[in-house]
């Protein structure tokens, strides 16, 4: 089995990436209160600054709101991609029906309950 240069470089980069992830994640799961400053700030000042009793909602929509904005845009891009793929499928079926001159059995999806 031949191993060329591209596979070797990707394996090296993957190895370095895994080592970096393990090193960084060792700092997050510490349990003394001095190194969890961000979560303690959210717990203490979450109610006064936003006014909502649900701290998870105040973190997702108020303190880190821009991440939620990016996530919604990713959902919108996925929906647009699915729609244009289905449009291409419908156009190719329509073109095939017009070329043959008759309607082939192109009911791809009858009612879902009738499997």
């Amino acid at each position, binding site marked *: 089995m031949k191993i060329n240069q591209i596979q070797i470089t990707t394996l090296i980069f993957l190895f370095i990436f895994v080592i970096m992830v393990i090193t960084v994640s060792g700092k997050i799961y510490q349990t003394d209160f001095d190194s969890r400053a961000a979560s303690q700030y959210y717990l203490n000042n979450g109610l006064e600054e936003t006014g909502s009793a649900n701290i998870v909602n105040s973190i997702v929509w108020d303190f880190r709101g821009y991440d939620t904005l990016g996530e919604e845009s990713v959902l919108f891009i996925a929906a647009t991609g699915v729609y244009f793929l289905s449009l291409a499928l419908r156009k190719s079926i329509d073109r095939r029906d017009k070329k043959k001159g008759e309607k082939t059995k192109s009911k791809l999806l009858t009612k*879902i309950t009738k*499997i």
Partner: protein
Amino acid sequence: MFYEALLIAAIVMALVAIEMKDLLQSVILLGSTNLIIAIVFFMLKAPDIAITQAAVIGGVVTMIFVVAIKKTERFEK
């Protein structure tokens, strides 16, 4: 004890879902596996994620699987 029993049941259901010949039954077993995972999320005191998991799996993912089965064949050879 109840917590470990739920996790073992989820693993057993997922293993059974691979071996079935009828693809529609394996889709139902996958849905129930994720429902057990939603109950485990609730037992670990995270109610937001439990509601989201149950709604997504029960509504949209099952629909996509059933449509994919409908376009190919139902019984696996």
